[in-house]
């Protein structure tokens, strides 16, 4: 048998972000506090990217960073807050300033828009949003391009159609991947199955690179097959201060520091300088957080956090 040469898709975080031109549209993976691609949002800031459009259900700290640093100018999202900690202050300020435009959908609507994109069909039907201002007001797509409420041709009942999304890039953060791109996700997947398949290019951030044999001995665990994956970035603690199941817990102290910092423009700029622009790369950021703190955050068996 001729052994195929396994394509090595690994690149550095810096190289990955260089591939994303200003003005790109990005599916943004993770959900709530789980598997947020924070490190990539940092590098987008360091490389001074501009005018990105972010598509996601409900990312949190990363959306705050990209809005606060002026990286993104458009969000098509369902939710922005730090959940239990409170409102997204940066987003609130940027929206009031007119520097950030938010097109509002629901979580299910966004998940279905990604599913439609993955299926390569132009829309998906949905039974939310109807009757409310979400179906009447549009920030920039224009209401006819945001959604359509039609009479179902089969039943005659009202049904909402939301347009599919095929962004330029999908950014997904996973626990493990082999170097050809077969990715394993532990725990909830949020909208990452659909999100990883709908983008024109897929960048996977992974806590750990594993051997192809470990993938092929457990094919049921592969959540993203290699054929979807364009680039892989090995990046431990890519979600800090958020969490990654079976790898580390959220850093509540840092999260509170972050949330407090976003309360005024001045303190936000200080945070930005100290933790994002002021460091060369993710490794330096982790040094700033400190080895000891990172060790404390490591997940414990059997809880996974």
């Amino acid at each position, binding site marked *: 048998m001729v052994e195929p040469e396994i394509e090595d898709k690994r690149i550095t975080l810096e190289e990955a972000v260089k591939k994303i031109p200003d003005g790109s549209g990005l599916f943004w993976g993770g959900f709530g506090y789980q598997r947020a691609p924070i490190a990539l949002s940092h590098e987008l800031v360091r490389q001074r990217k501009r005018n990105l459009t972010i598509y996601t259900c409900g990312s949190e700290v990363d959306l705050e960073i990209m809005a606060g640093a002026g990286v993104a100018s458009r969000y098509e999202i369902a939710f922005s807050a730090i959940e239990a900690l409170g409102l997204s202050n940066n987003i609130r300020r940027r929206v009031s300033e007119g520097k950030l435009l938010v097109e509002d959908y629901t979580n299910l609507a966004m998940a279905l828009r990604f599913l439609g994109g993955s299926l390569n069909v132009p829309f998906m039907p949905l039974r939310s949003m109807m009757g409310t201002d979400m179906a009447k*007001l549009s920030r920039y797509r224009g209401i006819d391009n945001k959604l359509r409420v039609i009479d179902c041709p089969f039943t005659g009942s009202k049904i909402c159609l939301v347009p599919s999304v095929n962004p330029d890039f999908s950014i997904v953060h996973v626990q493990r991947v082999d170097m050809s791109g077969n990715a394993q996700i532990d725990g909830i997947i*949020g909208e990452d199955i659909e999100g990883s398949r709908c983008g024109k290019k897929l960048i996977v951030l992974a806590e750990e690179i594993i051997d192809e044999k470990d993938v092929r001995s457990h094919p049921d665990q592969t959540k993203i097959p290699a054929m979807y994956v364009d680039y892989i970035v090995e990046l431990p603690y890519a979600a800090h201060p958020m969490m990654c199941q079976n790898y580390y817990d959220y850093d509540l102290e840092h999260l509170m520091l972050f949330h407090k910092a976003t309360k005024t423009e001045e303190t936000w700029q200080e945070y930005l300088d100290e933790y994002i622009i002021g460091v060369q790369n993710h490794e330096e950021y982790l040094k700033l957080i400190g080895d000891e703190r990172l060790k404390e955050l490591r997940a414990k068996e059997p809880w996974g956090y």
Partner: protein
Amino acid sequence: MTKYTKTEFLIACASRHVKDGENVFGGTGMPLLAALLAKETHAPGSNLISEAGFIDAQPREVPLSVADTRYYYGCSAAIGLIETLGFLLQGGRIDVGFLGAAQIDEYGNLNTSYIGPYDHPKVKLPGSGGGNDIASSAKRLIIMMAHDKRKFVKQLDYMTSPGYLEGPGSREKWNLVGGGPQVVITDMCQFDFDPDTCKIRLLSVHPGYSVADVLDNVMFDLIVPDNVPTTEEPSQEQIDIMHKLDPKGIYLGKGG
């Protein structure tokens, strides 16, 4: 008489609306504690679901996020949004959803998106998240809100999630899956909705408040029945269990 804080009172009050065997979207914060409290007391067979993908969760510590790994250990399935919001919720299989809001109108419609005009919003709020999905498709909706007069409005700045929309027949017109709001719990009273007009109605006032207090603190007309009972107080057992569920006082506050 049991001593309790306002937060403890609200959580105990909300937990009573969850019945045994029901499928519940718990979220985070007070609703989550209410759902967990119900499971630990009168509704042991209730099924706690997080929209992030956790089914039948039994967290040993209170989660801070619907996607918190604390939801994972001991749950029966960990899947994703298409499963929870699509197959389960839109599929009509969720009995109870909890929502909060910055504004509510007399039909139970909710605003969690913008304060001020849409074109020049004064405050950008979190948005729908799964809120509009839950309000559209859960069989019953339990709403929990801080009682501030400016939140109980005649006209929402933005309607994020449907209550009874424009009144009788509105939910049917839009072919919505779920049944609409059942109860609104504030730190002053409980409201329900008049089945004929779909308008908000006083259900009970909390100890220490009067019907007049409530009328002074809403900006719409309110249906007030002849007899308005006093809301049941929490038991010591409920309070003790709450604190076992949130030993660090993340939601209950440090003072406990």
